[in-house]
Structures are given as structure tokens and as C-alpha cells.
């Protein structure tokens, strides 16, 4: 008993583990470094235009994660506002470090096993040179591709926090981000996007992350909400008192802004495909904001600002996998349906779900991502991207591939995430105690207050 208590006392082991991992890795890397270092080679032509665009896109996607923090933070009660934002913020830090140490290599390194996991070739990026061309686009340096993809990994992890807010222990969240990135995100990314990836070879279409990012995270959030249990008072008391919806609108705006990097940057070049992805991203987002607004207006009698912003996010999610494949008209439909669909999920299905997916990660990202991935199979227009032809353009088979990818990724993420959450719960406890939850996580987890007015 006492031993378990000591293990549950998270702080010390966590800190030591971190220091150890960090320290050892660094020492090891410093040793190996010179071995690899000499291999730097010839410098073929890079495109400054493409590099500029992917650099800018990487910065844009970075901004999405704090944006997400504010999007989430504005919706929670004032006693949890800092904690909620910090779950996103710290994910930038942990994922960034792990990505360099081993994340990138597992996710995008040369396939090591059955198209579902990368090799350790790029561990610590020791074997990657500044002037190395990306395997994923020869006109840009490999480093910028590493960064661009890092930003995707960061936000995917951060997205999950929306299901867990107002009750998850900060230390457990830290551990979760590292484990989940390694065990869930990396294999899914390799399978869907990696050269030689399982679904990539099958021809699955996911331009900017419908499955890899949104289904992956949405389903993991649901698993987390189940393991964590409901917040005290959920569906009984009024625990919904968004402390400052201005934060949520700000976050939504930063997400919209950054998402242009997410989707149009995924072309990896400043080419017509990028401009098309940009255009359909904006169009779908706008249509979804309107879709959600209209649906809510009809059902509840008023259009809420939270609804408009939530609709926009639903549209961004849904267009993500489709953004490099569909034409403007397709994007209008995808977005409009996404707005109505995600709203319906939130108001009709969620209350029956039995889980307290606090900020609707599953309803918006999970379901929005599924709709987007399917819609890609429907609307992919070969005139936009010769790599994709959907059902409406004569290729019904694509739907089957999309369906298979969705199901597999969703099942994998759900099961693995569930196990990870359960294990963390056993080892160090996943949830704060009741009193801390009542007092609020800002004070109890961080000794801070969100507002001193």
C-alpha cells in the first residue's frame, strides 16, 4: 500500500525520469554525434519560395496550439482557466523535445516494420544534415519538414486535452503526452503519411490530417473522458460558466489563421495546389460556421458566438483531409454539412454518450474528422489533384479505402489510448482529488489564479 502511495506521488519520479531521459539521451547523442557528422554531402538546389512557404506555415501551425489553449480556456470556469491553457502550452514543449529525440524518426523515418513504424535512423536528428533534402519534397530542406510535421504532432496531442479539462492531474497529462506521441501518434502518422506506410500504399487520401490528427485525437479524447469519469455535477448542476468567451473567439481566430499553414502548407510547395487548399479551407470553414449557426438558431432560438466559432472549427477539421483534393463547390458542401453534423452530435448524441467529453473533442474533431475523411472519398476531384479521385468522380473504391483507414485508426487510437490512460491511472493517478476539483485546478495544480481583479 505504502509503496503504491509512493509511486503515486508523481512529482519526484516524474522529475527524475525526465532528467534521466534528457540527460542520458543528450550524453549518448553527444558521443554518437561525431560519427554521423562527417557524412554531410553535396547541396542540390532548394526552392527559396517553397522553403519560405513551409517555414511560414510551420510558424502558423505553431501558433495554433496556444490558439487552441485559448479556445479551450475561454470555455471553462474561471478557476480552471490557466490550467486548461497550460495543458496545450506544455504539450508544445514536451512534444517538441520528444519529436527531436525519437518522435520524428518513428513517425517519418524510413519504414521499419510493416508500414506502421519508422526506423530509429533519425534519432536525435544526429544523422540528418542541414542541407539534406526532405524525402517528402525534394525542393525543401529536411529540417523544415521535421518542424512542419512537429507542429502537427503538437496540436494533435493538445487537442486531446479538451476532453480531460477541469479534472486531469497536470503531472499525468505530461506523462500522457510523451507516451501517446510515441505509441499512438507515431505509428498512425507513419501508416497514413510515411513513404511506405500501410494506408499510404493502399491509396488512402488524407491531405492534412483528418485521420492522423483529428480522428486520432478525437477518439483518444473520448477514451480519456471514459477513464477519467465525469466532472462533479456534470449534467446535474450548472458547471458551464465560460469565464471569458473572448478567449474562445481569439483562439478560434488564431486557429483559422494558423490552419492556412496546416492545410495549404501541406502542399509543401508554394504551388497552385497550395492555393487551392487555402481556398477550400477558408470556404469550408465559413460554410460550417454558418451551418452550425443556422442549426442552433433553429433549435435553440438564438445564434451564439460560441456556436459560430465552434462551427468554424468543425469546418476546419472536416476540410483538413480533403483540402488538397476537392474543388470550391465540394468544400462548400463539406463545410456546411460539418457545421450541422457536429452541432447535432453535440446536442443529440453527446448527452447519451455517458462520457463527459468536456469540450466536445470527440463530437467536433472525431466526428468532424470522420466526415472529412469520408467526404474526401466522395468529393476528391482529379482536376484539383491527380492523386485523388472520389466516388462522385467515378471511383467508388476510394470510399472503401477511406472507410478502412478511418476504422483502423479510430480503433487503434481508442484501444491504445484507453490502455495508456488506464495504466497512468493505476501508476500515478489520472484525476485530481475531489476537493482540488471543487477548488479549481489553477490553485491546486499551479498555485496561481487566472484573474486578480
Amino acid at each position, binding site marked *: 500500500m505504502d509503496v503504491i502511495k509512493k509511486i503515486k506521488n508523481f512529482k519526484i519520479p516524474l522529475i527524475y525520469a525526465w532528467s534521466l531521459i534528457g540527460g542520458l539521451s543528450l550524453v549518448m547523442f553527444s558521443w554518437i554525434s561525431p560519427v554521423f557528422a562527417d557524412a554531410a554531402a553535396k547541396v542540390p538546389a532548394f526552392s527559396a519560395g517553397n522553403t519560405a512557404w513551409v517555414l511560414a506555415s510551420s510558424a502558423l501551425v505553431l501558433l495554433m496550439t496556444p490558439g487552441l489553449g485559448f479556445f479551450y480556456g475561454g470555455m471553462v470556469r474561471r478557476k480552471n482557466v490557466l490550467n486548461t491553457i497550460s495543458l496545450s502550452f506544455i504539450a508544445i514543449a514536451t512534444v517538441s523535445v520528444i519529436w527531436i529525440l525519437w518522435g520524428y524518426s518513428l513517425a517519418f523515418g524510413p519504414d521499419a516494420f510493416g508500414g506502421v513504424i519508422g526506423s530509429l535512423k533519425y534519432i536525435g536528428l544526429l544523422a540528418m544534415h542541414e542541407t539534406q533534402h526532405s524525402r517528402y519534397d525534394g525542393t525543401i530542406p529536411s529540417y523544415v519538414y521535421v518542424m512542419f510535421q512537429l507542429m502537427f504532432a503538437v496540436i494533435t496531442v493538445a487537442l486531446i486535452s479538451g476532453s480531460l479539462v477541469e479534472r486531469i492531474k497536470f503531472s499525468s497529462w505530461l506523462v500522457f503526452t510523451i507516451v501517446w506521441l510515441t505509441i499512438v501518434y507515431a505509428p498512425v502518422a507513419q501508416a497514413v503519411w510515411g513513404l511506405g506506410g500501410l494506408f499510404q500504399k493502399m491509396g488512402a487520401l488524407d491531405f492534412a490530417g483528418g485521420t492522423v490528427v483529428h480522428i486520432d485525437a478525437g477518439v483518444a479524447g473520448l477514451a480519456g473522458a471514459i477513464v477519467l469519469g465525469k466532472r462533479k455535477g456534470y449534467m446535474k448542476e*450548472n458547471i458551464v460558466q465560460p469565464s471569458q468567451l473572448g478567449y474562445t473567439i481569439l483562439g478560434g481566430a488564431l486557429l483559422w489563421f494558423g490552419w492556412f499553414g496546416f492545410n495549404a502548407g501541406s502542399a509543401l510547395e508554394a504551388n497552385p495546389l497550395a492555393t487551392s487548399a487555402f481556398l477550400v479551407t477558408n470556404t469550408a470553414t465559413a460554410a460550417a460556421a454558418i451551418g452550425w449557426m443556422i442549426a442552433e438558431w433553429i*433549435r435553440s432560438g438564438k445564434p451564439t458566438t460560441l456556436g459560430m466559432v465552434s462551427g468554424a472549427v468543425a469546418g476546419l477539421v472536416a476540410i483538413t483531409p480533403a483540402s488538397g483534393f476537392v474543388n470550391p463547390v465540394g468544400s462548400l458542401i463539406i463545410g456546411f454539412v460539418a457545421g450541422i453534423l457536429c452541432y447535432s452530435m453535440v446536442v443529440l448524441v453527446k448527452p447519451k454518450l455517458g462520457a463527459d467529453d468536456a469540450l466536445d473533442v470527440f463530437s467536433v474533431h472525431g466526428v468532424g474528422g470522420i466526415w472529412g475523411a469520408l467526404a474526401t472519398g466522395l468529393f476528391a476531384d482529379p482536376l484539383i489533384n491527380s492523386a485523388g479521385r472520389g466516388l462522385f468522380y467515378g471511383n467508388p473504391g476510394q470510399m472503401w479505402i477511406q472507410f478502412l483507414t478511418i476504422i483502423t485508426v479510430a480503433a487503434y487510437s481508442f484501444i491504445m489510448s484507453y490502455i495508456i490512460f488506464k495504466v497512468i491511472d493505476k501508476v500515478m493517478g489520472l484525476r485530481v482529488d475531489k476537493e482540488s476539483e471543487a477548488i479549481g485546478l489553477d490553485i491546486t495544480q499551479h498555485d496561481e489564479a487566472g484573474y486578480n481583479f
Partner: protein
Amino acid sequence: MKKIEAIIKPFKIDDVKEALNGIGIQGITVTEVKGFGRQKGHTELYRGAEYRVDFVPKAKMEIVASDDQVPDIVETIEKSAKTGNIGDGKIFISPVEEAVRIRTGEKGEAAV
């Protein structure tokens, strides 16, 4: 001395203050409060879910005054705070035994 406590609609603060100034009252303390009463609250929406917010924002004005000023003050507040709609609020009068002005140490009615 008495304390006159008036719970009024917040947008009436300025009117009541002016009216009280008009009859020579210079000291008032105002607190933001929330009232539950006959006046109903409103509904808030959060992603399609409706939440009733029962309280209504109100302002509490407190004036300590000598006994003979009380009728005047009450009348003035009644007039200036009235809209005729539900939720206009209440005035309560209660005894005060002593008052002290901190700056000067003055006591009693001289202090208010």
C-alpha cells in the same frame, strides 16, 4: 441614526445618486449584488444546452443618516429608482447605533 439600504436596478445608480445629492446627501456606499426575486433571470446557451441564470444584477446603495432625514431619503429613492416594472427593488431601514469618521475621529451624526 438609521441605515437605509436600497436594492435597485444597476442602471438607476446615477439617477438615484443625483437625486440624493439634490437633497443634500453626500455619502453613499454602493455594492454590486445579485438578486433573486419575482423578476425572472434569463437563459444562457452553451453549445445547444440551455442554462437558467436565476440571478439578476442589482445594485445595493447604503446611506447612513440621522433619523429625521430618513423620510426624505426614502421618498427620493422611491421616486428616482422607480420604473414601474417588476424588479425595481426594495428599501430597508435599520438602526445604527454609532458612526465614526476615521479621518477625524468625529462621532455620531457629525460623522456621516
